[in-house]
C-alpha cells in the first residue's frame, strides 16, 4: 500500500457509516417485528446498527492509530500501471454486456486479444494464443455441457 495513501483510509469509514445508516433505514421499512416474533427487518437492522457503531468508533480512533499517522510501507512497489488495470476492467464488463449479443466465440476472441496484448506480448503471439484459446475453450466447455450463446454467429 502506498504509504502516502494510509491517511486516505478514512474515506471508506464514511462509506461504512453511510451504509450502516442506510441498512437501518431500509430494514425499518421491512417490519422489524419484535423479539417475540422477529420480522424480516430485525436482523438487518441490528447488523446495520452494529456497523454504524463500529464505524463511528473507527472514525474516532483513526487519528490516533500510529500506522495512519506515520504511514506504513507494507512492501516495495514500483509504478502502478493504472491504464492496464482500467483496460482489463473495462473489457471484463464489456464482455458481460456483449456476450449474449455477439456470442461466445467473438466476445471471447476479442477479450483474449485485449488481455494478452495488455501485458505487452507480441502481436503474432497474441493472435495465435487468442484464437487457440478461444477455440479450445469453446470445444472443451461445450463438451463439459455448458451451452454458450451463438450471438451473431447463429446466422452462419
Amino acid at each position: 500500500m502506498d504509504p502516502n495513501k494510509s491517511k486516505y483510509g478514512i474515506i471508506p469509514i464514511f462509506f461504512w457509516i453511510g451504509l450502516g445508516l442506510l441498512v437501518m433505514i431500509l430494514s425499518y421499512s421491512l417490519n422489524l417485528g419484535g423479539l417475540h416474533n422477529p420480522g424480516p427487518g430485525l436482523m438487518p437492522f441490528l447488523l446495520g446498527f452494529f456497523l454504524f457503531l463500529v464505524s463511528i468508533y473507527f472514525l474516532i480512533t483513526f487519528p490516533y492509530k500510529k500506522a495512519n499517522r506515520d504511514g506504513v510501507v507494507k512492501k516495495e512497489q514500483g509504478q502502478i500501471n493504472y491504464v492496464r488495470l482500467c483496460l482489463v476492467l473495462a473489457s471484463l464488463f464489456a464482455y458481460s454486456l456483449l456476450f449474449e449479443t455477439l456470442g461466445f466465440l467473438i466476445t471471447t476472441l476479442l477479450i483474449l486479444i485485449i488481455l494478452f496484448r495488455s501485458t505487452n506480448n507480441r502481436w503474432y503471439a497474441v493472435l495465435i494464443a487468442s484464437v487457440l484459446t478461444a477455440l479450445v475453450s469453446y470445444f472443451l466447455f461445450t463438451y463439459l455441457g455448458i451451452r454458450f450463446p451463438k450471438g451473431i454467429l447463429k446466422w452462419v
Partner: protein
Amino acid sequence: MRGKMDIFSGIISGFQTVLNPINFLFCFIGVFIGTLVGVLPGIGPVGAMSILLPTTYGISPVSSIIMLAGIFYGAMYGGSTTSILVNIPGEAASVVTCLDGYQMARKGRAGPALGISALGSFIGGTFSVIGLMFLVFPLAKAALSFGAPEYFALIILSMTVVTYLASGSFVKALIMVLFGLILGTVGIDSTSGVARFTFGCVPLLDGIGLVPMAMGLFGISEVLMNLEIMLERTIFETKIKNLLPNFQDWKRSIGPIIRGSFMGFFLGILPGPSPVISSFLSYSVEKKISKDPTTFGQGAIEGVAGPETANNAATGGSFVPLLALGIPPNISMGILLGALMIHNVIPGPLLISQRPEIFWGIIVSMYIGNIMLVLLNLPLIGIWVQVLKIPYRLLMPLILLCCLIGAYSINNNIADVIIMNIFGVVGYVLRKFDYEMAPLILAYILGPMLEAHFRTSLIMSDGNLSIFVERPISCVTLVISVILLLSTGFSYYRKMKGKVIT
C-alpha cells in the same frame, strides 16, 4: 468394540467409494490442480476452489467434495515448492518455509528441502486424517444435543475468532464480518417470504450468489492486484538432486514433524486460518526449543519440516467442525460448505448416519490424496519447476477466462458474470485499503444460518434474550467471544508473527 467395527466398516465403504474410477479421477484432478495453484503465485487454493465451484453442479456431491478438498490440501504441498526455489510463497501457509527453505536451496540443498517438505506434509496429512476419523464421532454425538442457541453462539465464536486472528486491523476485520452478514440478508427471506434489499432486481431474489461473489473477491480481485505490477520471477537455477533426505536430516526433522502434526491438527479444529497459524506456531516453537536457534533463517531443516507438516495437519483438523457440526472453521471449509449446500447436503451430526458415503468418501479420499501428492511432488518436481517458469502475463488471461466462463455456467445467466465483476472491483478496492476478504465471505456464508438460529432461539424463548445465557454451552461460548472482542492490544498470533519475521 462396536465403535471400532463402525469405523472399520466405514473405512471399507469409503475405499469402495473412492476407488470408483470417477471419484478416483476427481481426487487426482483435485490434488493436481491444488499442487498447481500452490506452485503458481497469483492464485491460491480459495481462488481455485471458487473458480471450480460451478463445475461441481454437474457431478455428484461426493466427487465435488473430493475434488475441492484435494485442491485445499494439495495447495499446501505445492506452496512449499515456490517458497524453497523462488523465495516467493505460493500461498500464505508456506510463507515461513521461505525463511529456511530458500536458504537451504542457496546452499545446494534444494532437494532435501523439497523432499522433507513433501514427506513431512504426507505424515502430517495422514496423521490428521486418522485424528479426524476418531474425533468427529464423539463431537458429532455431543452436537446432537445442541439446539438453536448453541449453534448461534458457536457461529458467533467462529466469526469472532476469525476477526481476532486477522493479520491486519481488528476493527477492519469486524467491519468485513458485518458487511458479509448484511450481504447475506439480500434476497427473499425464507421465513416471511419478503424480498430484502433486491431493489426490484430479479437475479437478486435468490440472494447474491456465493459462487460469483467468491470468484469475484478471490479470483478477479487477485488478478487485478497482480496486474498492478507484473514482476517477473527469477527461479533459483540449481540442479535438484537427492530428493530424499539423509539420515541426519531425518534425525533433525522427526521431532518437528511429530510436534507439527499435533499442533497443526488441534489448531485446525479451531476457527481461524489454521494452516497459516499452525505453520507460524510450529516455526516459533522449533526455534525456541532448538539447541542452536541461530541456525534458523540460515537453512535449518527443522524450519521446513515443522511448518510444512503443521500446515498439512491443519487441513485434516479443519474438517472436524465442518463434518461434525456443519460449521466451517475457515474460508476454504466455507467454500466446501457452499459446495455441499449446492447439492442439498447439510453437514453436521446427521451427515454420518444419513449420508455415510459422503462422510467416509471424504475421509478415505484424503488418505489416497496424500499418497497421490507425495508421488506428484517428489518424482515430478522437474515438471513443477517448468510450470513455475510460465510467465504471469500468459497465465492472467487464462485465469480471467476461466472465471468468466465459470460464472456464466452457474445458471447460463450473464447476471452472475456481472455480479462477479462487481465483486472483483469491490474486492480490489477493499484490498487496496487493507481490508481482508476471508472474514467477509465467511460471514456471508454463515449469516443466513446465524439469523435462522437467532430467530428460532427467540421463538423458543418467547422473545427472551436470556436463553443465550441460561444454556451453559451457549453461555460459555458467548462469554469467550465477548472476551476476545473486548481484549485490546496485540493478539498472541500477531506478536508471534512479528517475532518470526524479524
